[in-house]
C-alpha cells in the first residue's frame, strides 16, 4: 500500500469528499425547494381560480398560508427534520423565513413573554427586514429621482 503524508491525505480528502456531498445536498435542496414552491403555486391557483380572489391579494394570501403551515410544522418539530434533509431547500423559501422567526421565539420562551418570545421573534427576522427595507429604500429613492427628472 502506498504511504501518503498528512498533507496529501488532506488534499485528497478535500478533493473527494465534499464534492459528492455538495452534489447530493444540491439535489435534495432542489427537490424540496421545488416542491415547496409548487405547493405555493397550488395555493395561489386555488385562491385565484376557485375562490375568485384577485392576483395581488392571492399572492399575499399565499405567503400568509405558507407562513402558517411553516409555523405549525416548526411548532411540531417537523420543519427542523425537513431542514436536516433539505438544507437550503427549506431555508430559501418563505417557509424558511417563518421558521427562522419562530425557532428562536420558542427556544427563548422560558425567558418570558416580553424578553423571551417577543424579543427573540426578531433575532433573525430583524436582519432580514432591515436589509430588505434598506435596499428597497435606496433603490426606490433612485427610482423616485428618475421619475422626477424624466417626467
Amino acid at each position, binding site marked *: 500500500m502506498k504511504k501518503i503524508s498528512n498533507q496529501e491525505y488532506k488534499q485528497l480528502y478535500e478533493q473527494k469528499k465534499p464534492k459528492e*456531498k*455538495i452534489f447530493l445536498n*444540491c439535489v*435534495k*435542496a*432542489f427537490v*424540496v*425547494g*421545488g*416542491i*415547496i*414552491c*409548487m405547493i*405555493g*403555486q397550488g395555493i*395561489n391557483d386555488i385562491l385565484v381560480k376557485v375562490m375568485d380572489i384577485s392576483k395581488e391579494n392571492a*399572492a*399575499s*394570501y*399565499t*405567503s*400568509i398560508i*405558507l407562513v*402558517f403551515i411553516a*409555523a*405549525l410544522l416548526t411548532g411540531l418539530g417537523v420543519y427542523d427534520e425537513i431542514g436536516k434533509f*433539505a*438544507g*437550503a*431547500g427549506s*431555508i*430559501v*423559501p*418563505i*417557509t*424558511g*423565513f*417563518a421558521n*427562522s*422567526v*419562530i425557532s428562536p421565539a*420558542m*427556544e427563548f420562551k422560558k425567558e418570558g413573554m416580553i424578553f423571551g*418570545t*417577543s424579543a427573540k*421573534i426578531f433575532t*433573525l*427576522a430583524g*436582519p432580514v*427586514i432591515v*436589509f*430588505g*427595507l434598506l*435596499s*428597497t*429604500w435606496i*433603490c*426606490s429613492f433612485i*427610482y*423616485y429621482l428618475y421619475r422626477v427628472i424624466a417626467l
Partner: protein
Amino acid sequence: MFKVYLSVFIVGGLLCVIGQILLNKTTLKPANILVVYITAGVILSFVGLYEKLVNIGYAGATVPLSGFGYALYKGSKEAIINDGLLGIFTGGLTGTAGGIAAAIIFGFLVALMFNAKTKK
C-alpha cells in the same frame, strides 16, 4: 397547467440550489443566506430582471425569499407612482405586510402553544 408547475419546480429548485452552494462553499449561515436573498431580490427587481424570472417561474420565483424582496420593491414602486416621495417609506412594507404580520403573529402563537424540543 403541467408546464406551469414544471417551471415553478425548476425555477424554485434552482434558487434553492444557489442557496445550497452558498451554504456549502462559503461561510454564510442560514441567516446570512436569507439576508443575501432578500437584498438580491430587491436589486434584481430594481433593474427589472426579477420580473422576468417571475414571468417564467411564477411561485418558483415568488415563494423564495428573493420573491419577498421583489414584493418589497414592487410595493414601493407602486406607492411612489401613487403617492410620490411618501411611497419610498410606505410602499415596501405595504407590499410585504401580509407575510411579515403572519410570521410575527403565528410565530408568537406557536411559541406560546409549543415547547422547543431539547436538542440532542
